[in-house]
């Protein structure tokens, strides 16, 4: 856990500076934690990651109370609880949002690189998405917090506002469900049909 300790030390220094209102503190916190927050937002199915990440950090920085004794663990779990709420809000508003496509040539996404790698990445992403969709909402929240956001058990419990024992039980069942699903051969049509029936994919928040 040397990597975690080093990151925690850096976050702690930036927190001390940010609580005093220094610009360097806010910038350091954003540089340290924004990559994880962006990955977590993508794992939650958010398309407009940049805006959501900006909203998350703006909410966190504007609510940074100087009377609270902050440390890296506390701030990280608090930040990802804000991220969970903001991504949920994004999905809630996405139902009312009308998607528009900018048809100008300069606005079209630049596609490039290796076509085969892009296809493999997309297949891998689809496969991971299917795996996560077979979990319940609580199990998926715990797995994404632990794996994508790289939070500890205690931090995940604090971020999701659940007891540690409940989080431990949820992650246990989530891994058993993944293992059982991975044991199913994709070529077996009967097992595949069962999995398809079983996979009542909940709507991602």
């Amino acid at each position, binding site marked *: 856990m040397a990597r975690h300790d080093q990151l925690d030390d850096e976050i702690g220094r930036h927190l001390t500076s940010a609580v005093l209102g*220094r610009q360097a503190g806010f910038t350091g916190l954003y540089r340290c934690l924004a990559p994880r927050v962006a990955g977590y937002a993508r794992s939650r199915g958010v398309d407009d990651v940049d805006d959501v990440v*900006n909203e998350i*950090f*703006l909410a966190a920085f504007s609510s940074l109370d100087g009377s609270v004794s902050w440390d890296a663990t506390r701030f990280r779990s608090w930040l990802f609880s804000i991220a969970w709420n903001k991504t949920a809000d994004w999905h809630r508003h996405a139902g009312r949002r009308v998607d528009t496509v900018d048809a100008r040539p300069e606005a079209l996404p630049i596609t490039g690189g290796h076509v085969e790698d892009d296809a493999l990445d997309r297949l891998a992403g689809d496969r991971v998405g299917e795996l996560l969709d077979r979990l319940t909402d609580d199990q998926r929240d715990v797995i994404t917090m632990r794996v994508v956001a790289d939070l500890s058990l205690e931090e995940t419990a604090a971020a999701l506002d659940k007891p540690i024992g409940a989080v431990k039980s949820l992650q246990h069942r989530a891994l058993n469900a993944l293992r059982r699903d*991975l*044991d199913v051969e994709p070529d077996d049509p009967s097992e595949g049909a069962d999995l398809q029936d079983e996979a009542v994919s909940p709507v991602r928040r």
Partner: protein
Amino acid sequence: MSDYGSEMSDHDLTDAVVERLLAGAPSVAPAERDVADALAAVRAAYPPQDPPPVGPALADFVAVDLRAVPAGGSRRGAADWYHRKVAAATAFAGTVAGKFALGMTVAFAAAGGAHAAGVIDVPLLPERRAALVDDGGDIQVTSTSAAVTTTPTNFDDVPGPTFPSPLVPNADTADEQASTTTPGTRPPGAVAPLVTAPGTDECDDEDGDAFGTDRGRDDASAEHDPASCEDEDGEGADDDASEPLDDASEPMDDTSEDEDDHAGDDQDDTDEREAGRRTSGDRNDDADSGDWD
């Protein structure tokens, strides 16, 4: 699919194994290799990416050095904490001071009231005065002629009370016969008993009027005939109360009688009224009979 219950049958993963898998440890047992690969795929699908560009709102917030702004950062929290503490202390002190002032006011009021009632003697307060009786109204008070006498413990040793002369209705002469006080015999603070002079006792005591509110009228009638104070029907108050009505009804009686017997004779009426006052005890009989002589 339940979150907590239905999948507890195949428990091969211990807590330590789960923590190793979630931490992405490379060395896992072959039985958990599939799960480790799946988690690695999840981790690879959503890797940490470069920080997104800072939006204008966040840039505006971060670009401001909040140290230059007094209403931000920890100093705002410290100031709020200080103001809360000061406000709480001020409120507590104000409450205590208010309760103390209220308590002192009640205590002083109680002491003053007890001193006025004679229960206690507060040295700093002035001495209590004798109780004053407000007769009120337009009735002339002549009872000031009451003599204040001492109350001897043994009446045999006292040669006998000396009373002033009988009262006269004139206030000027009544003042001359004012009360005589035996100096030095009344203890300080004692209420002086009121003793009514004889001659007026008969009238006053009949109606039980200790304050003599109708004494002036009684005295007026006693001016001509002291014996008229005697209660004829045993109700002194009745006489006193009926007299003004009689006086007021006299002109009406006179009018009716003038029509009958003495019409147009004003002088005779005046004389007869004066005569009727002197013989007020016979007025009713005269009015009934109409015989003024």
